[in-house]
C-alpha cells in the first residue's frame, strides 16, 4: 500500500504542479510533495525493517533491503533538493533566466522524475524497470535544456540521443532476458520478467543467451551510469542544466542506473557461473576512474568538474560491485549512499557559488570564504569529503574498497590509487583558490539557506565515524542479496 502511495504522491504532485506550477507558492508545494514522499518512504522502511520483504500488485512491485535503502535515500535527497531549489530557482527567476512557464515545467518534471526513479527502484518487472529508466531520461531531458542556451540545448540533445540509443540496447537485453526466461520456465507470460522469479531459477537460465543479454544491458544501463567510454553525455548534461537537476542527476539517477546494472548482474552471474560480468564491471570501473581523473585535470567549469568526479566515483562503485563479495558490496552500497549525499551537497554549494559569481567558470569564482562563509566552507568541506578525506564517510567506503582490492585484485590497486591521487590534485587545486583568496565582489546581503548542504555533510561525517548497527545490518543484508556470501 505504502508502495503505491510512494509512487503515487510524486505522480499526483507532477499533475498538480503541471497545472499550478507557476504560482508563487509552487516551490513550497513542490517541497511539500517531496516531504510527503519522504515520510511515506520512511514508514515503508520501518515496515520493511519490521516485516521483511514485500511483494505487491501482482508481484509487479517489491521491496527488499537492496532497494529500500535506495528508496529512502532517493526520497531524502529529493526532499533536500526541493528545499534547496526553493530559494535557488527564485533567484534564477529574479535574474530573468527563467519564465513562469518554464518554472511550471520544472516543477512538474521534477516530481515526474522522482516518480520514475522510485518506480525503477521498486518495480519487480525488468520490463517496467526499462520503461521507467527511459521515462526518467525523457522527464529530465527538457529540464537540462531549461535555460534554452546553446550549450544547454547541445547538452540536452546529446543526453537524449546517447541515452536513448543506450537504453535501446538495454531493451534488447531485456528482450533476450525474457526470451531466456520463457525458454526456461515455459510460456507463463507475465511472470517471466519478474526479477524475483528470475532470481529464483537463475540457475536454469540459458548461459549463452544471458551472456549476450548482459552485454546489451550493461552497455544500455551503463550509458546512464556514465561508465567510460559511454559517459560523454554526462558532463554536458550535468553542467548545463539548472543546479537542482544536476544535483539529482548526479546524486540519484546514477544510483538508480547502477542499481539496474547490479540487478542484472545478479541474474547473469547466477546463470553464467563465471566471473565474466564482474570482470566487465571492473574493466568499466577502472577505465572510468582513470579517464575521469585525467579529464578532471583540465576542467574550468565548476559543475563539469564535479560531473567528472561523479564519473570517477561511479567507476569506483562499479569496480567494487565487479569484485563482488560481502565486503566489496557492502562498501559499494555505502559508497553509493555517501556519494549521492556528498555530491548533491557539493552541487548545492557550487550552484550558489556560480549564482553569486554569475559564471560557472572557476577563474571567475574567487574568495568565497569572504564573500559568503557558509558557501565557502560548504564547498571546501564537500570537496574534501568527496576526495576521500577522513573522517568523512567517503573515506570509510574507499578504505574498504581499496583494502578489498588489495586482496582480490592487487594489480588494480596502484592504478586506482594513482587515479585518486591525480583526482585529488586536480579537484583540490581548483577548489582552494575558489574558496580562499581575495575577491573584489562585495559581501552578500543575506546568507543563502544552506541547511541541505550541511545536513548532508553532517550525515556523511557521521557515517564516516559511526555506521549505526541497523544500517550496517541492512547493508549486509543487501550485500548478501547481491551475492556476497
Amino acid at each position: 500500500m505504502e508502495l503505491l502511495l510512494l509512487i503515487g504522491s510524486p505522480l499526483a504532485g507532477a499533475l498538480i504542479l503541471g497545472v499550478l506550477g507557476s504560482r508563487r507558492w509552487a516551490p513550497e508545494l513542490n517541497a511539500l510533495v517531496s516531504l510527503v514522499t519522504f515520510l511515506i518512504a520512511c514508514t515503508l522502511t520501518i515496515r520493511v525493517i519490521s516485516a521483511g520483504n514485500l511483494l505487491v500488485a501482482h508481484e509487479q512491485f517489491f521491496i527488499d533491503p537492496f532497494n529500500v535503502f535506495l528508496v529512502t535515500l532517493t526520497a531524502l535527497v529529493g526532499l533536500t533538493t526541493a528545499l534547496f531549489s526553493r530559494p535557488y530557482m527564485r533567484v534564477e527567476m529574479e535574474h530573468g533566466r527563467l519564465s513562469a512557464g518554464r518554472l511550471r515545467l520544472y516543477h512538474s518534471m521534477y516530481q515526474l522524475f522522482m516518480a520514475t526513479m522510485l518506480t525503477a527502484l521498486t518495480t519487480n518487472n525488468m520490463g517496467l524497470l526499462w520503461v521507467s529508466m527511459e521515462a526518467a531520461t525523457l522527464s529530465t531531458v527538457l529540464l537540462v535544456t531549461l535555460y534554452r542556451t546553446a550549450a544547454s540545448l547541445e547538452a540536452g540533445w546529446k543526453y537524449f540521443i546517447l541515452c536513448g540509443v543506450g537504453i535501446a540496447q538495454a531493451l534488447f537485453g531485456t528482450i533476450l532476458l525474457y526470451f531466456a526466461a520463457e525458454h526456461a520456465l515455459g510460456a507463463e507470460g507475465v511472470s517471466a520478467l519478474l526479477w524475483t522469479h528470475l532470481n529464483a531459477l537463475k540457475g536454469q537460465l540459458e548461459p549463452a543467451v544471458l551472456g549476450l543479454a548482459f552485454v546489451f544491458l550493461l552497455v544500455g544501463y551503463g550509458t546512464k551510469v556514465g561508465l567510460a567510454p559511454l559517459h560523454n553525455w554526462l558532463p554536458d548534461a550535468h553542467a548545463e542544466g539548472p543546479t537542482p537537476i544536476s544535483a539529482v542527476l548526479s546524486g540519484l539517477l546514477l544510483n538508480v542506473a547502477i542499481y539496474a546494472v547490479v540487478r542484472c548482474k545478479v541474474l547473469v552471474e547466477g546463470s553464467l557461473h563465471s566471473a565474466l560480468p564482474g570482470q566487465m564491471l571492473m574493466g568499466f570501473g577502472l577505465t572510468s576512474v582513470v579517464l575521469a581523473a585525467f579529464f578532471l585535470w583540465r576542467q574550468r567549469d565548476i559543475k563539469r568538474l564535479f560531473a567528472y568526479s561523479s564519473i570517477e566515483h561511479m567507476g569506483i562503485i562499479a569496480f567494487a560491485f565487479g569484485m563482488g563479495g560481502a565486503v566489496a558490496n557492502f562498501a559499494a552500497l555505502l559508497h553509493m549512499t555517501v556519494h549521492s549525499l556528498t555530491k548533491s551537497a557539493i552541487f548545492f554549494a557550487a550552484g550558489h557559488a556560480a549564482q553569486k559569481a554569475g559564471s560557472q567558470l572557476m577563474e571567475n569564482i574567487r574568495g568565497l570564504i569572504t564573500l559568503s562563509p557558509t558557501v565557502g566552507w560548504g564547498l571546501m568541506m564537500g570537496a574534501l569529503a568527496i576526495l576521500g578525506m577522513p573522517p568523512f564517510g567517503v573515506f570509510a567506503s574507499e578504505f574498504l574498497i581499496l583494502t578489498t582490492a588489495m586482496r582480490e585484485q592487487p594489480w588494480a590497486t596502484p592504478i586506482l590509487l594513482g587515479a585518486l591521487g591525480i583526482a585529488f590534485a586536480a579537484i583540490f587545486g581548483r577548489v582552494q583558490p575558489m574558496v580562499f583568496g581575495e575577491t573584489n565582489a562585495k559581501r552578500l546581503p543575506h546568507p543563502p539557506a544552506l541547511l541541505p548542504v550541511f545536513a548532508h555533510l553532517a550525515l556523511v561525517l557521521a557515517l564516516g565515524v559511526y555506521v549505526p548497527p541497523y544500517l550496517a545490518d541492512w547493508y549486509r543484508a543487501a550485500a548478501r542479496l547481491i551475492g556476497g556470501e
Partner: protein
Amino acid sequence: MNGVPFDLQLLNMCAALLLLLSFAMLAQRRVVTLVNLLAIQGALLFAATLLLAWRTGQHHLYLSAALTLGLKVIFLPWLLHRLIRRLEVYWDTEPLLDVSGTMLVGLVVVVFAFSLAQPISALASTATRSSIGIAVAVILLSFVTMITRRKAMSQVVGFLSMENGLFFGAMSATYGMPMIVELGVALDVLVAVLVLGIFFFQIREQFDSLDLHHLEALKESAALEPRADGEGR
C-alpha cells in the same frame, strides 16, 4: 523453400525486406525519403506482426499490431514530414563515410549480427527464430546510420528504425513482450518523438539549422589558455 509453409515464407520475406530497408536507409541521403523508408519499415513490421498473430493466434499480438500501425506507420511519419516541412530540412550533408564504404561496414555488421544471433536462434522455439539475426542486424545497422549522419533529423530516423528493429526482435524471439511492457515501450516512443519535436524547434530557434556541427561546442579537446592564476600546478 519447400516444406516451409507459405505464411512463414512471407514472414521471412518481410524480414529480408526489413534488412534491405535498413541498407537503403544507410545509403539514403534525402531526409524525406528516409522518413518514407521508415514508414515502409513500420508497415512491414505491422504486416509481420499481423501474420504472426494470425499464425500463432496470440491475441495480444493483434493489439501490438494495431499499435504499430497507429504509431509507426501513420503517426510518426506524419509528424516527421510535418517537421520537415516546417523546418525545411530536406537534404542531409555529405556523410562522414562515402556510400560504398558505409555499405562495406554494413555488410560486416550483418555478418557479425548473424553469428551473434546463432545461439539464440538455436534455442528459440518460435517459428520465426531464423529472423532474430535479421533483427539484430537491423538494430546494429541503424546504429551505424546514426553514427554516419550529421543532420539531427536523420539521426532521429535512425533512432526510430532501431526501435523498429527491437520490436521485430522481440516479435521474432518471443512473440512480443508482456502487454504492460509493450504499452510502456509504445508510450515511451511516443513521448520521445514529442520531445524530439520540441527539441527541433528549440534547436532551430537557437541555431536556425538542424545541422549537428552546431552542437559540438561542449568538448574537452579545446586548447586551454593558461588559468587566471597559476595555482594548483
